[in-house]
Structure formats: structure tokens, C-alpha cells
């Protein structure tokens, strides 16, 4: 087992070092600080000392995030707010790059120390295992954000080869590649073309691009998650499911139970939960907790007002869906009706809401987002709509059909496993590989790498 973990650690550090070896020191520092903090929190009898080490860990992780991800944003906003010139203040913008996957691994390690503090888990006394937990390469750069209680124990056990898990891992990787290379990258062509010059586009084209963008980020990010989960399976690890066909959500709240599930759970456990539990847990307190959580989820995505508004927008939608009112003496909410109406209607409702929020996610600035929304609702004719459709975007209905009919499985290939013999399955896999080679879109970096 020790040898397995040494190999994994070397592979993980090599993988990350290929991008930029200098940031290996940052991961190592984060790992060591949280490792020591975990042990000290567990060892300490005094609550002050326990808190001290918790704060050290949290301050370090948030500090690293702040410096690398948010410092320039806050400095720029501060100077814009007070109309300051660069020479008026001591702090100036930093010329630094954002380490890949920073938001993912800092959140993972932060949850570890918080869970140790809450006594939900025991601290790791094995440095090698802990270093592997922080840097495990399949999920290091874009999640899923794992909890220590789920992932860390897996490093303590010797992994045995499991043929069915390995086969399933390969199938999941193939499915993830299909989503990324065929759907996301091809759809990106039409999205980029339309969003490059929104002023030249009509309402229909802009709305169409926003719908496509939803599928682009979904397939881009869930494709990566599938590849990560599949790769982990090859090594005998089980990672958490990160997506569950989010476009089939009946409400905005349900959307967040199906989209980036590990991030939503993280904020539910460490931000929303503690805030909402204070007070009488009434609607107002919960709504306040919701706005804080969703605002932070937005900010987690990037240092830009567009992401913050993206989060707040979701909070507004969820809070409206939750407003309690009485009908015939019975306390209900919009959610109650959404859960009872025909699936198609509820899906259309939530899909329109989510698609609109994607405009904030995709646009460069808030002004541009509002301009696009205004243009969509102004019903400006799209004269060249036929030119921007992008035939390859027609792969989306294919994806939806496959996912819908295999919605009770982990991925569509699991469906084939039960139904068809080996030669037929292999033929299907060969066809998918051929499609990957022949119809892959232009190489686009994974969108979530930037977070």
C-alpha cells in the first residue's frame, strides 16, 4: 500500500508539475499546514488552541486564494470605488498567474481541518496518505471536491485490481471525452462566434447561444468529472458523483442538487448550514444564508462581478421558489407546485432561468450581460440566424436522448453493458472513438481549469 501511495504521489506531483513546477511548493505548503493543523486540533485539550489551529488553516487557505485569485479584483474595485489612481495608494495590482485547480484543492483541505475541528473525522497521522489526498491527480485540477471522510480512508487501504471497476472506468473516460470533445468543443464554435460580437446578433441568435453555452459548460465540466472519476476507478478509488443530468431539474434549487454537486454540498455544510441553523431557522434567516452561500459560490468561480451576480441571481430564484404561502390552510410554495406539475413544464421553467443566469457566466462584463439580456427580450430579428446555427450543435439532442434513457445509470455505456454482447459493445466503443477522432471540435481548454 505504501508503495502504491508513493507511486500515486509521484504521479500526482509530476502531473501538476507539468503545468508549472513552481506551484508544487504551494500544494506542499498547503498540505503540510493542514496536516499539522489537523493533528494539533485533535491533540489539543483547550478550545482556544483548537480554534487557533483551525484559524491558521482557514486563514492560510483563504489567504492563498485571496492573493492568487482575488487580490487584483479587490484592489481594482477599491480604487474604482474611491476614484483612486495607482499612485494614490500603496498596494498595486500583482502580476501573478492563478495556479490551476487552486479553488478545488484549497476547499478540499479546508474541509479536512473543519471536519477534524468538528470531530467528524480523526486526523491523518500518515503524511504520505495526506499528501496523496490533497494532490490526487485525477481530481486535483477540476474536482470533484472530495471530503476527507470519503477519500482519505481509501489511501489507507491496499487497492486490489477490480476488473469490473476498471472496465467501467474506461467506459466513463470514453463518455467524458465524448461530452468534452464532441459536444462542448463543437458547441463552443457557435457560442464564441455569437458572443464575440453580440451587437451584430439578433434576439434569437443570442438566446440560442445562451442555451448552447449551458450545454457547453455542462459537457465541458461534467466531461472532465467523468474522466476524473473514470481515471480514479482505474486506480481503485471511488470519487463522488458531481453531476446528475442538471437540465432535467424541476426547480433552481433542484438544479443545484444536480450541478457541481460536491461544491454545493461543501457550501451547504460549511456556510449555509451553520448560518441557517442560527436563530429560529425561519424563512428570512434561511434566505439570508442562501444569499451569502450563493454569492460566495458565484465568487468561487472567479474574481468578477459577473460571477457574483450569477450566484445572487440563483439565490433570488431559489428564495422566490421557497416563499411560503397558504392555500386552503395548507402551507405551500412554488416548489410544491413545480414538483407536481408535468416534468416537461417544470424543466422548461427551470431551464429558462438557468440559461439566463449562464449569460452572466459567459459574458466578460456586467454591462455586456445586461446588454445581451436586454437584446434578447427586445425581440430584435436575427437576420443571419441560419448562418450561426452550427450543424455540429445538433449533437445536443443526441446527448439528451442518451442521457435521458440512461438516467438511472451512472453513464449511458452502463446501459449497453447489460443489453449487448461483447462484440456489439466493442463496435459501439469503436464508433465512439472514431467519432472522437473525426468530429472533435477545435481544442478548447477545460473551462473549470481557470477556477
Amino acid at each position, binding site marked *: 500500500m505504501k508503495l502504491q501511495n508513493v507511486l500515486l504521489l509521484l504521479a500526482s506531483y509530476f502531473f501538476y508539475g507539468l503545468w508549472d513546477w513552481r506551484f508544487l511548493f504551494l500544494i506542499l505548503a498547503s498540505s503540510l499546514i493542514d496536516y499539522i493543523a489537523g493533528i494539533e486540533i485533535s491533540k489539543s485539550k483547550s478550545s482556544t488552541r483548537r480554534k487557533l489551529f483551525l484559524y491558521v488553516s482557514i486563514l492560510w487557505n483563504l489567504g492563498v486564494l485571496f492573493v492568487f485569485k482575488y487580490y487584483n479584483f479587490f484592489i481594482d474595485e477599491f480604487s474604482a470605488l474611491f476614484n483612486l489612481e495607482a499612485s494614490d495608494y500603496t498596494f498595486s495590482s500583482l502580476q501573478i498567474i492563478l495556479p490551476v485547480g487552486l479553488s478545488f484543492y484549497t476547499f478540499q483541505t479546508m474541509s479536512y481541518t473543519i471536519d477534524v475541528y468538528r470531530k467528524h473525522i480523526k486526523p491523518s497521522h500518515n503524511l504520505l496518505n495526506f499528501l496523496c489526498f490533497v494532490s490526487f491527480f485525477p481530481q486535483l485540477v477540476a474536482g470533484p471536491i472530495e471530503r476527507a471522510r470519503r477519500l482519505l480512508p481509501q489511501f489507507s487501504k491496499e487497492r486490489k*485490481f477490480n*476488473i469490473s471497476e*476498471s*472496465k467501467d472506468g474506461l467506459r466513463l473516460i470514453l463518455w467524458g471525452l465524448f461530452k468534452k470533445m464532441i459536444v462542448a468543443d463543437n458547441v463552443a464554435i457557435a457560442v464564441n462566434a455569437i458572443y464575440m460580437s453580440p451587437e451584430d446578433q439578433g434576439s434569437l441568435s443570442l438566446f440560442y447561444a445562451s442555451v448552447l453555452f449551458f450545454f457547453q459548460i455542462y459537457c465541458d465540466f461534467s466531461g472532465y468529472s467523468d474522466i476524473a472519476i473514470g481515471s480514479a476507478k482505474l486506480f481503485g478509488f471511488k470519487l463522488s458523483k458531481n453531476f446528475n443530468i442538471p437540465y432535467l431539474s424541476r426547480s433552481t434549487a433542484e438544479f443545484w442538487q444536480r450541478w457541481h454537486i460536491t461544491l454545493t454540498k461543501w457550501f451547504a455544510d460549511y456556510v449555509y448550514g451553520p448560518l441557517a441553523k442560527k436563530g429560529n431557522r425561519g424563512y428570512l434567516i434561511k434566505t439570508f444564508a442562501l444569499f451569502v452561500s450563493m454569492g460566495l459560490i458565484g465568487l468561487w468561480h472567479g474574481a468578477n462581478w459577473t460571477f457574483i451576480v450569477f450566484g445572487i441571481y440563483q439565490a433570488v430564484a431559489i428564495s422566490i421558489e421557497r416563499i411560503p404561502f397558504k392555500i386552503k390552510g395548507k402551507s405551500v410554495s412554488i416548489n410544491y407546485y413545480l414538483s407536481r406539475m408535468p416534468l416537461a413544464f417544470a424543466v422548461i421553467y427551470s431551464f429558462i432561468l438557468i440559461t439566463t443566469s449562464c449569460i452572466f457566466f459567459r459574458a466578460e462584463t456586467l454591462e455586456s450581460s445586461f446588454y445581451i439580456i436586454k437584446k434578447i427580450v427586445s425581440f430584435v430579428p436575427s437576420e443571419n440566424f441560419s448562418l450561426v446555427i452550427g450543424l455540429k450543435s445538433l449533437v445536443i439532442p443526441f446527448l439528451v436522448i442518451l442521457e435521458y434513457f440512461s438516467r438511472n445509470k451512472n453513464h449511458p455505456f452502463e446501459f449497453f453493458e447489460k443489453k449487448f454482447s461483447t462484440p456489439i459493445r466493442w463496435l459501439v*466503443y*469503436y464508433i465512439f472513438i472514431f467519432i472522437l477522432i473525426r468530429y472533435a471540435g477545435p*481544442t478548447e481548454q477545460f473551462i473549470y481549469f481557470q477556477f
Partner: protein
Amino acid sequence: MQNNFIKYCFLFFTPLIIGYALLEYLTLEIPSSFKANKTAINLKQEKFETLILGSSQMMVGINAEWIDSPTLNLATGSQHHNTDFKLIKSLSPKFKNLKTVVLEVSYSHFELPHNGMKFWKNPLYLKFYNVNMYERQTYFKDKLVFLKNPSLFLNDVYDYYFKNNLSYSINDYGFNTINYNDYFKELNYNENEISQITKLDINTKENLDLFNNNTKLFFEILDYLEDKKIHIIICKVPMYKTFLNQRNENILKRRDSILNVVLKKYKGVEILDLEEDTINFKVTDYKNDSHLNPDGAKIFTQKLNEVINNINY
């Protein structure tokens, strides 16, 4: 169990690897400008007096066969000045007799992005000319041509090996001598119908950052060639009037102002400006609004040949 898995992986992936190797081989065997140029470089690199660079306009517009001095045309579709410069720096030391370099400056050359590290032709430069465009150490995968543009090469493989009516015939100078097929021919060179076509591939977006960056590199190329005492000819390739009418005036003015500066600063530079020549070039000399066909290429090459002869002798 483990052995079974490895056995099945081997059985599953072997046909894929063999299939890929076959496609790579078939792709490399298809006649192309790159292949013809590689042969020419191997055979007579010390004889070349003129080196032609540029994009598809130069590739289809110049047949080196009709130039009196030994000439190599390395122009290819989408090739920008940064790639031209790397080709010059890598290959010119091998061309001991090189006297003239012909560069292209199209209407929007200065406001289009340079070729990036991901340019799909980079493996071709490495494979055929042994010129590294990656700006880093290269690996085995960097030479794999098919993988960089599978959809295009699959069509090429199908056309060449399975279809009989090929639309190209590459001569020893890398020039396609039957390169007529496009919408001008489809419309029977009917100028009225051609003028109705609105879908032109023309850049009208102004970009001052790119302009500054691109002109800087362009002057570096000229300085480099001047240092090496190599003559420079800058070509403005003929364009059909539908293209000329759609140009952005600001981009055009900026391009021409740079060329005026070039003429003042560099004594040995010649500009062959046939961009708006509607007298020598008729509709039947074009394959589309921005590319000459072999008939037009013959006229353009002869004009270029005159300029080269005037410089060299």
C-alpha cells in the same frame, strides 16, 4: 483477472493503433505542396535563389516553375509572418545562394493573429521541413500529422485513395496545376451571379493591439533580411472586386501607411502591388474572390518574375 484485463485491453487497442498508424502513413503519402517542397529542398537546397512565403493567396498565386531563377514557394494556407520568419531563420542558412525573399502583405495581414503554438500545420513544418514551430522541445506526438486535423485528412485520404476524380495535381514545385474548382467556376464566371454572393471570408474587425504587434515583427523580418543582404519583395496579391469592395478602409489605410514607411526605411525593398489590378486580371483568372486560379497565377508569376529579374540582374 488482471491478465484478462490486460489481454482484453491489448485486443481492443491494437486495431486502433494499427488503424491510426495506417491513416498516418496514408496521409503522408498523399501528394502535397509540403511533400514536393521537401523533395525540392533535399535535391537543390544550395541552388535556390528565391524563397517565397505567405498564405494561401501566395500558394495558389505563384507557380515557381515559371520563375527563371531557382525558386522555392513555401507559402501555404493561413501561414502568417511569424511562421514565415521561423522558416526564413531555419532554412535560409541552408540556402547558400539565396538572393531574394518574397513576402506577402495582404490587406488585413497586420490585423490578423499570428499562427499559434496550436496551429494545425505545425507537425507538417516539423515533419517535412524539420522546422520547429512549437517554441519548445518537440516530442514524438508533435510529428503526428493526421491527429492535428483528422476531419480534413480523412477526406483527403478518401479522395486520393478511393475517389478517382481528384481536384488537384501537384507539380514538382508544389503548385496545384488544376486548382480551378470553387464557386467562380460553379457560377460559370458569371459576374452578375458572383456579385450576388455575400458570404465572403474577409476580416473587417480592426485590432490595434494586433496591428502594433504584427508590424513590430514585420520590421524585425525586414531588418533580419537586410542584415543578411537579401533582397525583399513584398506582394499585394490580386483580389476580385467583390473582395476589394468589402475591405475596411481603416485597416487598408494602416496597412498602406506601413508599406510607405517600409519603402522609405529600406532601400532594397520592392513592392509588387497588383491587389487592385482589374485590367490584367479578369474574372476567369480567379477561383474565388480572394484566390487566383492557375490562369491568374500564370500572369501574377510572370509579373513577379520580371521584378525578381530586375533585382537579381
